């Protein structure tokens, strides 16, 4: 899909925020004494992780999920894909 440079900047930002948010929720949930709060924070953390996945899929021109790519594959996106998008 076509992305503007602005889209890309925002998506990068959003991915970073979501990553930090899921880490924070996960970390706090483990420290919480109150099970109710722990559950809520965990649930919200999972939502952030889902968001990350959704955002990542926006970057993938073929529309295929990009996570869980085998270790070792350096770049998820072959240069050719980006070439197409830029035209």
């Amino acid at each position: 899909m076509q992305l503007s440079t602005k889209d890309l900047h925002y998506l990068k930002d959003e991915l970073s925020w979501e990553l930090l948010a899921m880490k924070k929720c996960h970390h706090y949930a483990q420290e919480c004494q109150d099970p109710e709060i722990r559950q809520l924070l965990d649930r919200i953390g999972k939502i952030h992780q889902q968001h990350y996945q959704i955002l990542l899929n926006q970057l993938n021109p073929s529309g295929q999920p990009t996570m869980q790519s085998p270790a070792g594959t350096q770049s998820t996106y072959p240069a050719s894909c980006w070439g197409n998008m830029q035209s």
Partner: protein
Amino acid sequence: MQWQSQDPSSPYHPQGTPSGGQQQQTGLPRVKGPEMNDRDRINDVMATEKYLTTAYNIAVNEASTEQLYRTQMNLLNELHQCQRDLFNLMHRKGWYKLDQAQAQDVYQTAQQFSNYQTQFPYS
């Protein structure tokens, strides 16, 4: 966003309310040390969600395609829901005390803005 300024979790805000008993059922230590407690944690997550919704809101406006717009709007919606869930839980724990507005003030405001209806451009 008005309640943000009240910073309900601030340890520097002694809860001068007579209903001090409400604080005890929350399981917080009576004498607070420097370490973060549950209330600090949930409050920090709340602040994160607030930041996220504000930031997404700007991004959404500038999405170049309809598809990207909708995707981000969906995420924004979910973040709002998260925020509300956090708020509701904090409220239930008694960590988010909101003061009742004075009936007199409400009445006066209603009067004031009712009078402005004469300025409506549409009949």
